[in-house]
């Protein structure tokens, strides 16, 4: 199996249809497939071990992804926002690689690693030029399609391996080939080194939905591209949606009436924000997607009807589903287990385990799958009586005070009900007496005084058990997030050490 089949089928079915639009240039499926073949020839000639992208999103990301697959070399998109030292470490781990993007930075950080480096424009030009003379093997042996370094919010980045069979299982199981009508266009603004960026290219190509690539997210550029290209769907992380709504609230004008569907994921969506979005876009279908790098993207989703039903409902349990990530895909199994790996009954909080053909659960160093093929996600969660999955932070984020496990989320949810608190994070702070105690970092809402410590403690004490009452309270201007909107708890914990 090889994911290049996805582009090949689209190009066979309708070579002239526009498949990708970026920076004003329009690529047909036929032109993309030819460029991917040319790229594959260039890649094979380089004799490199990996193909890397160190760049914002562009057509080069699609050409490199499919070109690497045709060449049978793993594709490794890198996070160009990493600090020099972190990036240098990753560059040495993939050497020698054919790298597309920031030539000067590679030469500065990894001069002796034997990398072959092309600028975006050079790579694309070479790929197009080599298309006609490309002679490629019919079958390639390599079974790793993509290698993604995890974001390392809790530890050093791990190299997650996604096999062709994982990604193809995901696409075949969730997308109907060529199901998109001529007018459908998906706005893609997630970075190319994120699993959502890879999945967007694969899903939309297989559905034959035109991809509108935004090189880097900016709310005004997003609104302008959605309006000018009449985007019909988009995937956003919650922070992006928040920034788009803020621009609209501030009076930004853009005709985005074509936008029929918005999918979101990649981080925790505050219920207030999705409520607001449902009010603001009454005709739009919202889908919440939950997935991980190691699972080839989505494993559970909350669909449009479920969003509207929860939004309208007066019943508390039904309304609470706006905060769930929905039900598992029909092609995967999900279980909640305790620390010893024993299955927990419905409603109990534990670690989310997942199994299915799309689940790789494998790192370059080792596989994390158990003997029956289950992947422990390290995400904590629980499943309600109707089968809806709720997330409750990372399993590693659990605060253990005197043997009692508590989820940061329950404390944060209570803090966020305070009118003067805009954002909050709860973490475990080492304690001689208890092992860990609760520390909370709060961000006051602009124009409000931060509530005093006693007020914060009383709020938690009234709503939760006394063990949840924070021992340490910090007031910050902002919490540390990565660019995908993931809270960096490791950094919050460090703040309590001072």
């Amino acid at each position: 199996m090889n994911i290049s089949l996805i582009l090949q089928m689209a190009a066979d079915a309708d070579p002239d249809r526009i498949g990708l639009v970026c920076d004003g240039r329009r690529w047909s499926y036929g032109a993309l497939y030819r460029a991917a073949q040319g790229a594959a020839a260039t890649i094979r000639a380089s004799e490199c071990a990996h193909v890397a992208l160190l760049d914002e999103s562009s057509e080069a990301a699609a050409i490199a992804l499919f070109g690497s697959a045709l060449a049978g070399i793993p594709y490794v998109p890198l996070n160009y926002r990493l600090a020099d030292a972190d990036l240098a470490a990753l560059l040495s781990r993939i050497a020698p690689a054919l790298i597309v993007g920031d030539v000067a930075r590679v030469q500065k950080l990894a001069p002796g690693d034997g990398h072959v480096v092309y600028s975006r424009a050079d790579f694309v030009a070479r790929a197009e030029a080599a298309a006609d003379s490309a002679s490629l093997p019919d079958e390639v042996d390599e079974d790793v399609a993509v290698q993604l370094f995890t974001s390392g919010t809790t530890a050093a980045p791990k190299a997650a391996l996604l096999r062709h069979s994982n990604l193809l299982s995901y696409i075949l199981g969730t997308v109907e080939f060529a199901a998109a009508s001529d007018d459908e266009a998906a706005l893609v603004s997630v970075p190319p080194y994120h699993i959502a960026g890879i999945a967007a290219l694969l899903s939309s190509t297989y559905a034959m939905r035109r991809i509108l690539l935004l090189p880097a997210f900016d709310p005004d550029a997003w609104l302008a591209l959605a309006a000018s290209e009449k985007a019909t769907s988009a995937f956003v992380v919650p922070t992006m949606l928040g920034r788009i709504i803020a621009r609209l609230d501030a009076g930004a004008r853009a005709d985005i009436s074509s936008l029929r569907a918005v999918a979101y994921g990649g981080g925790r969506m505050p219920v207030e924000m999705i409520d607001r979005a449902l009010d603001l876009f009454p005709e739009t279908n919202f889908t919440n997607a939950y997935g991980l790098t190691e699972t080839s993207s989505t494993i559970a989703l909350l669909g449009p009807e479920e969003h509207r039903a929860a939004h309208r409902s007066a019943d508390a349990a039904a309304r609470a589903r706006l905060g769930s990530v929905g039900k598992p895909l029909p092609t995967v199994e999900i279980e909640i287990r305790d620390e010893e790996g024993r299955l927990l009954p419905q409603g109990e909080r534990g670690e989310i385990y997942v199994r299915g053909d799309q689940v790789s659960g494998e790192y370059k160093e080792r596989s994390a799958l158990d003997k029956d093929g289950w992947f422990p996600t390290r995400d904590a969660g629980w499943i309600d009586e109707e089968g809806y999955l709720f997330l409750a932070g990372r399993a590693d984020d659990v605060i253990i005070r005197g043997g009692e496990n508590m989820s940061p989320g329950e404390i944060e949810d209570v803090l966020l009900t305070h009118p003067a608190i805009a954002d909050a994070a709860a973490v475990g702070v080492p304690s001689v007496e208890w092992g860990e105690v609760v520390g909370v970092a709060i961000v006051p809402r602009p124009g409000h005084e931060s509530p005093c410590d006693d007020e914060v403690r009383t709020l938690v004490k009234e709503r939760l058990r006394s063990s949840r009452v924070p021992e340490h309270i910090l007031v910050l201007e902002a919490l540390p997030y990565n660019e995908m909107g993931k809270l960096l708890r490791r950094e919050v914990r460090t703040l309590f050490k001072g």
Partner: protein
Amino acid sequence: MKPGTKLKSTVDDTEVMVIRGTDAVVECGGAPMADEKPAQLGTLNPDFAGGTMMGKRYVDEAGTVELLCVKPGKGSLAIGGVALQIKDAKPLPSSD
């Protein structure tokens, strides 16, 4: 049949990729499929001429064989003379 194996019809343009397979011989248009398309196509059996559709997945009754049509043709797919069926999948909202 290993997952990923491509099979070609010997009587029409159909090509399939094996998603899940057994040792069963897959037929298209009434004739066994092969690794290579023959220079001269055989004759399509009119009893197996319903056609294949690109991008559809075809399964046997027991669910032991699943094939993805990657090139469509005039023949229809069968194992041991029993026609394969299109796999019905509930459409999911796009999440990417």
